[in-house]
């Protein structure tokens, strides 16, 4: 029987070693797999490369929490502003940064999951972010060649899941989660609810279970996180 449910966060995160590349879903707090990320910080693998849109906002939770513990070697993201932890590490030269335009970041991840090693986009042409990159003209317009991104692990948050690993999302919490699920060797989802029986409705599934390896049920803390974010 296919059963991707695991009983604990520790079990869910088993096998993430030093030097791993980890994609983390979410746009700010919404859709961020906070419980998984905080549990990963406890486990403490070192020299991580993190791929995410943001760099977190509080040393107490999420990506900034990983950084505060000294576990992150490199950040690949579009918008690290808002993280004091990242800022101090970065200005001290203690963390690497690769800034990627948000849409290029999304497409590099999607292509990573879709078996496409490289693609062309007009985004970033003649900017500092494409300085070292190959450019090319198609039909009179200029484009930058971008390479896809894959990861050892993706940590994602879903609203509901089933034992086959199918996922659905709430509100604007899809963001990077469906594409990161596709792009990692090991995709681990935290979900507010895991439905029993015949699983989610086939037409409603957003992330098919083929992309998901483990599912763990945890109450979403997005209410708390947004409050904390607001206060910070």
């Amino acid at each position, binding site marked *: 029987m296919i059963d991707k449910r695991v009983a604990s966060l520790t079990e869910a995160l088993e096998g993430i070693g030093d030097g791993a590349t980890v994609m983390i879903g979410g746009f700010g707090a919404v859709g961020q797999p906070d419980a998984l990320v905080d549990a990963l910080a406890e486990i403490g693998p070192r020299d991580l490369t993190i791929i995410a849109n943001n760099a977190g906002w509080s040393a107490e939770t999420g990506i900034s929490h990983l950084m505060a513990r000294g576990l992150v070697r490199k950040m690949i993201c579009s918008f690290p502003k808002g993280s004091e932890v990242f800022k101090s590490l970065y200005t001290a030269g203690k963390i690497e940064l690769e800034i990627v335009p948000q849409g290029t970041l999304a497409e590099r991840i999607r292509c990573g999951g879709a078996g496409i090693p490289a693609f062309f986009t007009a985004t970033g042409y003649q900017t500092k972010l494409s300085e070292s990159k190959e450019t090319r003209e198609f039909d009179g317009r200029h484009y930058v060649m971008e390479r896809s991104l894959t990861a050892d692990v993706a940590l994602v948050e879903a609203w509901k899941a089933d034992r086959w690993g199918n996922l659905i999302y709430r509100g*604007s919490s899809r963001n*990077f989660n469906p594409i990161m699920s596709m792009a990692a060797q090991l995709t681990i989802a935290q979900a507010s609810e895991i439905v029993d029986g015949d699983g989610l409705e086939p037409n409603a599934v957003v992330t098919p279970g083929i992309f998901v390896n483990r599912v763990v049920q945890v109450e979403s803390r997005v209410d708390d996180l947004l409050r904390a974010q607001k206060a910070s």
Partner: protein
Amino acid sequence: MTGTPTSIGLDTAGMAKRLADDIHDAWYVNLGVGLPTEVANYVTEEREVVFHSENGILGMGPTPGDNEIDPWLVNAGKKPVTLRPGASLFHHADSFAMIRGGHIDLCVLGGYEVSQAGDLANWTTPSGDLMPAVGGAMDLAVGAKRTWILMRHTTKDGQPKLVETCTYPLTAPAAVDRVYTELGVFEIRDGGLHVVSLSEGLDLETVQARTGATLHA
């Protein structure tokens, strides 16, 4: 081209409203974080302008009341929003397919500098920020059908932001179609700045004096 600070022209509400009046009904529109977000306040619901948020929303409605907040539904500025009838939700790759694929009728962004060629600089400073961050600005500037910039006409110390050539690092070359400032509305075409309208009580000479490139009447 002087160092005089501008206290003339529209206030920020007036600027947002001026731009809002030029948006066509039923357009799909992405509003950047900051002042551009204010534009939505001046577009009535009946006009059915469809607001896009790059984190996966089409059909955003106004800010919810304190008791109506859905924490899972935020805009690109990570602030709570609502959904209007006809809304849809999707993931980031689909959201930027809309942007990059030319499906968004208009994006409104802020700007540090805009050149007469339509080059846009709005993401980082010449020295490089202490912490650079780009977000979706580069995708929006090259992808949307129209890119309109909503910004103050000059810097705080009176330097013009409409210039011949950008000194700030570019967000995108030849991307801007229009610029809305407190002093007027300017269209960029054929490599030059053309005056669409000047704010009430202002003449071309006054505005030209605060502009770093030639204004064509």
